């Protein structure tokens, strides 16, 4: 846990994995949303529970109305996912230590088997990107056949959220290690970035100044959402550039 007075100091501390999202070229096609659900075994909650606001997504496309009627304008599409904050508000509130910071990968983890479902983390997340398993949702045949074996299938009563596809990170690291080399930038990417037809999402190492994400992030007009809260997010957005 990081206290406010320490935030300034730790602002120099960059994470390990990060993302750059270009809202100007995002068409809002939802391909990332679908790809994410496929990759990470996210349940389909159905119409009824969605109506209660219990839909489950690790990434969603946000749009807001701007201005007064009749001069309303739509803001650009805004893919919103866990920002993998370096100083995450979700972490210190968990009474069970189920949402911990990975020291090795600098990610916010959700340890499903440790989670007791208080939902405190979800309520404390300023980006509202955590979703809760209100039920054990059914996966009727053929859907059950596409479960990803590298990702835990969550049960009822457990909180979950974007992991930056940690299973892909591990796979790439394992492959690189077997071949006796380091992971190369662009060798692998997250499911959402891979599915994006407009290449609006870029994923990679933010602590490596040579990587594509770092280069993009340094272009200047990037913006981090709710940065003023001191969460130190690892996702940079470009808008109106």
């Amino acid at each position, binding site marked *: 846990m990081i206290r406010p007075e320490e935030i300034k100091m730790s602002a120099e501390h960059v994470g390990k994995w990060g993302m750059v999202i270009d809202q100007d070229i995002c068409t809002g096609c939802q391909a990332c949303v679908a790809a994410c659900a496929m990759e990470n075994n996210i349940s389909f909650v159905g119409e009824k529970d969605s109506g209660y606001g219990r839909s489950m997504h690790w990434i969603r496309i946000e749009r807001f109305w701007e201005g007064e009627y009749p001069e309303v304008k739509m803001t650009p599409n805004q893919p919103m996912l866990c920002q993998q904050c370096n100083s995450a508000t979700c972490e210190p509130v968990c009474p069970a230590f189920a949402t911990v910071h990975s020291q090795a990968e600098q990610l916010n983890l959700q340890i499903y*088997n440790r989670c007791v479902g208080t939902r405190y983390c979800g309520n404390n997340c300023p980006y509202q990107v955590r979703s809760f398993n209100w039920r054990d949702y059914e996966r009727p045949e053929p859907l059950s056949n596409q479960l990803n074996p590298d990702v835990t299938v969550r049960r009822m009563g457990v909180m979950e959220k974007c*992991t930056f596809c940690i299973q892909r990170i591990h796979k790439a690291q394992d492959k690189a290690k*077997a071949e006796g080399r380091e992971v190369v930038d662009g060798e692998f990417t997250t499911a959402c970035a891979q599915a994006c037809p407009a290449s609006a999402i870029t994923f990679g190492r933010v602590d490596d100044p040579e990587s594509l994400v770092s280069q993009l992030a340094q272009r200047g007009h990037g913006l981090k959402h709710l940065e003023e809260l001191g969460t130190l997010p690892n996702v940079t957005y470009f808008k109106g550039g």
Partner: protein
Amino acid sequence: MIKRFFDWLKQPLGLIAVGIAVLTLFSIAAYGLYTTQQPPEQPIQFPHKTHVAFGIQCLYCHPGAARGPAAGIPTQAKCWGCHNQIVKTQTSLLLAPLKEAVESGTPIEWVPVAQVPDFVQFNHRAHIAAGQNCENCHGDMTKVNIAENPQVFNMGWCLDCHVKNAGEDHVKLVKLTDCGTCHY
């Protein structure tokens, strides 16, 4: 009423009754534990002992262990490579299911015994590459007939070895004890 019952329990006959009840409960519990320690019923009574004694490498039948997360169980094609040349295959009752599986082309449905829960991500490759022997985790397979699981794959067991292996290397220790290394 209840007082009368307790008084009766204090009689010799009552004490014997209590003794019998306790013994029965104990044996049921012991039997329950015993059944969990038994290897499950397999479609073929495959003897590891005999095969390993012939000098067949573990990796010949479980090649995935050196390449990726899962070691894998051989298909009947691999068994048949040897067994179609072995006279005993035609006569042995133990091998009848294998013959049938090869002829009909239906896969043999082995019952898994060495397993971690779904929420744990294990990877054989990293361990074999780091020089860990199969015996360290699966016990001495030259002694077992039908595969059983000698240890409980619990978290303390994983972490003990990881801490021991990391030694003074801080980066490695952080990586090998990070929740995100095994749970996602």
